[in-house]
């Protein structure tokens, strides 16, 4: 995989989102990497609406085969979803299944005016008709099957992208 500076990409994402912001826009980060990124965007973009977070564990389409795994986090949507413009934030866009689960979950809180997707990296190989309106980087080549790309954050708040092989 090409070397990626996650902090530069995050900076770039701020610039991509800023021109389209409205006073009404709210951010929702998807656990876990998406929440770190959303916290950063929320701060850098000076968004006034409180930050939302969701864990899609209860909406995943592989529950039937894999069950619940890990420790699900509480979803927290501290604003009224009805009629709201929402930017859903995730670290990596891959098959699109996580985004699908997040969309379903958000609609259980109300009917938003619109939802856009912001991601740091698009690694391609979509399995659903989903695209990101804001994307800081698109990988030119597919990653090996079974590998996972995820954001991590150190104590100083600096980001890095890590490639893990299962």
């Amino acid at each position, binding site marked *: 995989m090409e070397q990626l500076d996650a902090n530069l990409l995050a900076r770039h994402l701020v610039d991509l989102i800023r021109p389209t912001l409205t006073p009404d826009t709210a951010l929702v980060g998807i656990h876990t990497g998406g929440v770190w990124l959303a916290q950063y965007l929320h701060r850098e973009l000076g968004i006034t609406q409180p930050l939302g977070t969701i*864990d899609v*564990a*209860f*909406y995943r389409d592989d*529950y*039937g085969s*894999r*069950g*619940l795994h890990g*420790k*699900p*986090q*509480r*979803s*927290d949507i501290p604003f009224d*979803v009805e009629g709201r413009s929402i930017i859903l934030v995730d670290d990596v866009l891959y098959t699109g299944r996580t985004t699908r689960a997040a969309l*379903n979950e958000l*609609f*259980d*809180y*109300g009917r938003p005016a619109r939802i856009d997707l912001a991601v740091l990296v698009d690694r391609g190989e979509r399995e659903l008709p989903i695209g990101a309106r804001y994307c800081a980087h698109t990988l030119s080549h597919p990653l090996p099957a079974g590998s996972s790309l995820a954001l991590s954050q150190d104590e100083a708040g600096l980001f890095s992208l890590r490639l893990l092989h299962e």
Partner: protein
Amino acid sequence: MNNPARNPQLNADGELQHLLTLDGLPKNILNQILDTAEPFTEVAEREIKKLPLLRGKSVFNLFFENSTRTRTTFEIAAKRLSADVINLNVATSSTNKGETLLDTVDNLCAMQADMFVVRHATSGAPYLIAQHLQATGRHHIHVVNAGDGRHAHPTQGLLDMYTIRHYKRDFTNLTVAIVGDVLHSRVARSEIAALTTLGVPEVRVIAPKTLLPSDIERMGVRVFHDMKEGLRGVDVVMMLRLQNERMQGALLPSSQEYYKIFGLTEEKLAVAKPDAIVLHPGPMNRGVEIDSAVADGKSAVILPQVTFGIAVRMAVMSMLAGS
């Protein structure tokens, strides 16, 4: 079963397959249930109080003994997980016509049951069903014990643990007193098992000698027969319901006398820690085991217990159905 030494509640991968008792349930599973329940509490605050986890699954509430509250909270939990819930009023159905428990179960399996929630007056009935499903290779069907005889009431024990953890955070520095009819109480057994597994250093029971099992000290608890001694310095008071039918035997003189000695009043509670919490599994007998001033007072966490009970049952059901 292939390996009889295996915990009958766990599958080969060590995941929860049935929930039958908290006795012998490993600490990591107990904590996993409590951790999983936490995010479920938030669902109650949503516009649409429903998650898709058990979509297409059929949950059968098999209550051979009446219990409106437990059945209702199981029903709400299953419905919030999008399951189809079928309530069987077994008291008025085929068992009265002579059908055996396992024949009833086989018939419901033929109706594509995915989970049984079982309440039965006989200790071990849910275990018998689980064993039968296992022996007949129906590993995808799960059993939840909703109270069996004097044996166990694991989801009540779990929701009590959830409530204690919610208010006290850490189990390892607590003193907990269980008060009342321990002898007949499946709730008390489940509570003692869970408190011990979760590392509570001191579990006390406070009751008259006639309402304690003879082997009570073997359960690792300190026994008290006096409320003020037993409640001194405790962080948590877990009340048990005094079943009215016990008054008819020779076990207790009268409910007034019981209230005088073992009823929880503000005066008796005053020797506990100032921030002590009071739990009760319901239904309460005001003026028998608990005074209204305590039941409605600032220490009582009895209604939050009910709310947490739904989340805990959602956690159990979603862990089972996903195993």
